């Protein structure tokens, strides 16, 4: 075992993303994702030697929520199970590191969330420092609006350019059977949608969603010849300052650093030319433009022109979010892992109606924290 070049993703599974899943418990959702991933890999739970579950206690409404699904993820009695609180890309990173430690061969990564069961304003207010920031009433929506305005002001990005992301991703979602919102929206629909917190409008925002996802990561030599084998070529992870005022919200510096690490490992010099498809964390329309910049698809401030030129459309040079992204369904925590699953399916040629032709190298991106505080970038390929 040397490094990421020995890591292979051989199984993926996701539930349909839905506004609410009243018939499912957390365990029901996790079980569905896990059994799909095992079936996909042609494995049984006995082939798994360690499990990383991922959830958030505030969203679940219970403490140590990640340990409460251990029966549904096949941990049984005596299997090594550990937990991450954060986006699924981070738990996949941890699951990969456990294999690289030499102690494990096959990691099962599971994420679940139900956004439908509580009050997102209260929960996301809880992200922030209780002394200085919570009393101001900050939440995920109004802080995103602060970031969007700052980004637009610094780089001359227009609301229309942001809205184009929403139009593109919703159109892509029509072909994704797992997407929650499958509806065509025009630029006018987005621009005329209800103001949430200026300049954010309803259709700039991802919806509230329930969902679970699972992936199986292997360090076995034989996994490289697995029918599903997707090679991990590079992974990078980086976090920015916690206090919003400590960073310039217009710039995705932490993503820049995370991407640089992943690209270095994958020996990618010109990401726009060398990456065939990207699934990025578009929690809000403007974020996708910022992430283009942080991922080096264009220079800082160039995100607006990139979407104007159609580069990231399905028929563009680098399609971004062919699945429809989070704007078409956003189970928090699970969101990034679905990006990784979609990237793997694209590499395998198994993405169905939203398959991009000839994908050799794909990028997946996960975010945790307000205004993109921390980022994890995966480069996967054949």
């Amino acid at each position, binding site marked *: 075992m040397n490094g990421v070049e020995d890591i292979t993703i051989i199984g993926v599974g996701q539930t349909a993303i839905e506004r609410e899943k009243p*018939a499912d418990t957390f365990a029901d959702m996790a079980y569905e994702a896990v059994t799909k991933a095992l079936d996909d890999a042609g494995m049984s739970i006995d082939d798994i030697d360690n499990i990383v579950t991922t959830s958030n206690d505030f969203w679940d409404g219970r403490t140590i929520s990640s340990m409460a699904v251990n029966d549904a993820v096949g941990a049984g009695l005596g299997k090594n199970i550990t937990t991450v609180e954060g986006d699924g890309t981070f738990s996949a990173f941890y699951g990969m590191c456990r294999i690289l430690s030499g102690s494990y061969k096959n990691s099962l990564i599971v994420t679940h969330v139900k956004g439908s069961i509580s009050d997102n304003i209260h929960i996301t207010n809880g992200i922030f420092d209780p002394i200085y920031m919570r009393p101001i009433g900050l939440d995920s*929506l109004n802080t995103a609006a*602060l970031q969007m305005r*700052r980004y637009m*002001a610094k780089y001359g990005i227009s609301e229309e350019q942001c809205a184009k992301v929403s139009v593109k991703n919703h159109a892509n979602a029509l072909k994704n059977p797992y997407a929650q919102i499958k509806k065509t929206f025009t630029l006018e629909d987005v621009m005329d949608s209800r*103001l949430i917190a200026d300049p954010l409008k309803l259709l700039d925002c991802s919806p509230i969603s329930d969902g679970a996802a699972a992936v199986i990561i292997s360090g076995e030599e034989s996994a490289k010849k697995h029918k599903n084998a997707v090679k991990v070529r590079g992974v990078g992870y980086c976090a920015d*300052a916690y206090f919003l*005022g400590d960073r310039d919200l217009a710039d995705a510096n932490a993503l820049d650093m995370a991407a640089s690490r992943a690209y270095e490992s994958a020996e990618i010099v010109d990401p726009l030319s060398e990456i065939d498809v990207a699934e990025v964390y578009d929690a809000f329309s403007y974020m996708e433009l910022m992430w283009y910049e942080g991922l080096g698809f264009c220079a800082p401030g160039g995100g607006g022109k990139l979407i104007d030129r159609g580069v990231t459309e399905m028929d563009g040079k680098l399609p971004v979010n062919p699945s429809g992204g989070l704007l078409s369904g956003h189970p928090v925590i699970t969101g990034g892992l679905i990006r990784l699953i979609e990237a793997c399916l694209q590499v395998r040629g198994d993405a169905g109606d939203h398959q991009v032709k000839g994908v050799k190298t794909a990028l997946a991106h996960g975010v945790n924290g307000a205004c993109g505080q921390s980022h994890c970038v995966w480069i996967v390929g054949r």
Partner: protein
Amino acid sequence: MAQKQQDQELLQYESRIKVPYTWSVGEVGSRFLMELKENRKIWATRCPSCDMVFVPPKKTCTYCFSDIHEWVEVKDEGVLQTFTVVRYETPLIPGKPPYIIGIIMLDGADTGLVHLIAGVPHDKVKVGMRVKAVFEEKRKGHILDINHFKPI
């Protein structure tokens, strides 16, 4: 509350979670908040290594991990870096929507302070506008001892 799927009633339970917390503000934060209360002044800390001036004050530098001991007073006015007009009602903010949240770079500071903006029609707020702190008459050592920032 129950929904029906095929022949099976699906039950749901309401949470009763309500957990009290008492957060320590700490030595640095307490001094900052007490200056708001006692003197209507905004104090910051300055990193001895990289010179960054933090509001709210930090004990450890975000950028270089140095211990910070030096205090500097910053002005109670500065430049609005960004803002949003929040259109939805939330019990977390006093008053009715629309209300304005902004990030203010106070004169003398290197980090932005997130706070409420008021005293201006919401369609007249602009990035780059100068704003000044409006203090509460009755202050208690809280970030909302500054009621809001108003344009000057």
